[in-house]
């Protein structure tokens, strides 16, 4: 029997699914105990108990200084920035992307410029950003927008351009104006793709968030990681990384669910 036709029993499939995670955990435990045996104060691979203590400290013990539960304030700060950055990017992508996609004027004006901007490494522009926008939330949000929006705009414009020309003509024969075509034909069909492209940009957005928070902030997930990195407090960094991963995965899952729920037809199309 060919390997490609192999059929796994449900039990075997589940076991295989968990195997790499188990291996990872075991490797960690092994490495950790080896390093701790050598140097009980080793911070690189702390014992699970130290990690648990750190989680307890960050998530369930009020900070002595501020009385806040740090993990939650950090999460809240970061998520606000992320939501604002991604929200603005999505809105920009929607408006500019659709304009580029359907209006020849905007296409000529902006398409090359957006392509160009999407190639600029945003991290290198950070100093300028901070100086022109100040250090508050604005510049952090702006970094996310600059890093993420051009790509989303390009993607959406391409989606709109890829709509069959026949649909547009058909809409014209149904007496639609340019505005109505954008509103009732293009927009609804662009939205599911916009959500898809939003999902793809979650990773980069987190990256830019962490980079911006590393420079100036007084709370946030990236801020915390960079703060304790000086002490190599991996007992805090690991849970934070896990938590960010969880947040990113949930957002990814949530957005996809949202799309299916809001645009049931997009699922049907994909299934074809």
């Amino acid at each position, binding site marked *: 029997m060919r390997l490609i036709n192999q059929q796994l029993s449900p039990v075997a499939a589940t076991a295989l699914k968990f195997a790499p995670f188990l291996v990872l955990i075991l490797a960690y435990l092994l490495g950790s105990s080896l390093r701790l045996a050598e140097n009980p104060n080793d*911070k690189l691979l702390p014992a699970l108990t130290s990690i648990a203590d750190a989680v307890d400290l960050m998530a369930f013990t009020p*900070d*002595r200084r501020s009385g806040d539960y740090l993990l939650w304030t950090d999460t809240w700060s970061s998520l606000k920035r992320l939501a604002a950055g991604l929200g603005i990017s999505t809105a920009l992508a929607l408006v500019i992307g659709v304009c580029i996609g359907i209006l020849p004027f905007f296409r000529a004006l902006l398409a090359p410029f957006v392509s160009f901007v999407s190639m600029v490494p945003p991290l290198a522009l950070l*100093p300028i950003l901070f100086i022109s926008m100040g250090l508050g939330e604005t510049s952090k949000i702006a970094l996310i927008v600059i890093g993420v929006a051009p790509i989303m705009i390009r993607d959406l414009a391409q989606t709109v351009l890829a709509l069959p020309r026949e649909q547009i003509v058909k809409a014209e024969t149904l007496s639609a104006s340019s505005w109505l075509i954008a509103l009732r034909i293009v927009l609804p069909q662009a939205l599911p793709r916009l959500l898809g492209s939003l999902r793809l940009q979650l990773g980069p957005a987190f990256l830019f968030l962490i980079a911006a928070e*590393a420079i*100036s902030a007084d709370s946030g997930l990236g801020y915390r990681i960079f703060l304790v*990195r000086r002490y*190599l407090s991996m007992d805090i960094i690991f849970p934070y990384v896990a938590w960010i991963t969880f947040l990113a995965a949930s957002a990814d899952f949530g957005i996809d669910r949202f799309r299916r729920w809001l645009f049931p037809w997009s699922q049907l199309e994909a299934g074809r």
Partner: protein
Amino acid sequence: AQEKTDFKVAWSIYVGWMPWGHAADAGIVDKWADKYGISIEVTQFNDYVESINQYTAGGYDAVTLTNMDGLSIPAAGGVDTTAVIVGDFSDGNDAVFIKDGNALADIAGRDVNLVEFSVSHYLLSRALDSVGMSEQDVKVINTADPDMVGAFQTDDVTAMVTWNPMVSEIETLPGAVKVFDSAQIEGEIIDLMVANTDVLSDNPKFGQALAGIWYETMTLMTSDTPEGAAARAAMGAASGTDQAGFEAQMAATKLFADPAEAVAFTASSDLAGTMNLVRAFLFDKGLLTPGATSEDAIGIELPDGTILGDTANVKFRFDTTFMQMAADGAL
């Protein structure tokens, strides 16, 4: 600049500057600002360089930095800068570590990880001087400060120069040998609060408020009272460690809690010697203004009015006025 009432101060996370954050948290900043009828916004930076850049670009009126960076960044960038407060000097906060060796001379021929062009670089240069070597004898690898502790544990790192809190972390690592530290060049790495000279001269109230804030916080944090302990614990937490860790870092810092002491240090003739070493170092690295032909390219004014370097291009000034007012209780 002209008279104004809103001021912005930037500070970054470092033991000698943590009091600024605490002063803001504890309401000391607002208290003094109100007293002078101004408002002061205090912003914390994780990234030291970025805070200086922001100040240089005009986004802030005052910033915390070292004497060397004050000369090489804002002053070299054309921003006339005055040291309002001389807060402390590094007395062991910066150190040179090596592995597999026990004397500084063993560093010869090694790669040295440090933040290039920072005070660590300066410390290395002074350290090498002290054993008759020069930078030609080692190879410098630029390494970001938050990653020093992790980097030190890798096999290919055998020599490193860094500052606190990384120094106290590295000290605890097996195999780390401290072969030189800033206590051996006492008083050369000075931590300052500097302000834009124009802003300061038009708004002396701003300088007074800064001095008032600083010395009230100093008094609080150096006191052996429960409040003092609480302040130190809070600053420790804010810098990512705890009270004990913070106090260990304080021990390696010569804090001028008493303004009179700070005035005496600033006014002493040693400062000129220190600044001469610093500008020689910067010129050697090409870090004075790009077209500089000698270390005299930028003028440095000392408290007594003497000027080192170009008198027509004075961009960096030490001024004891406000510290003196604090010492005199005139704030």
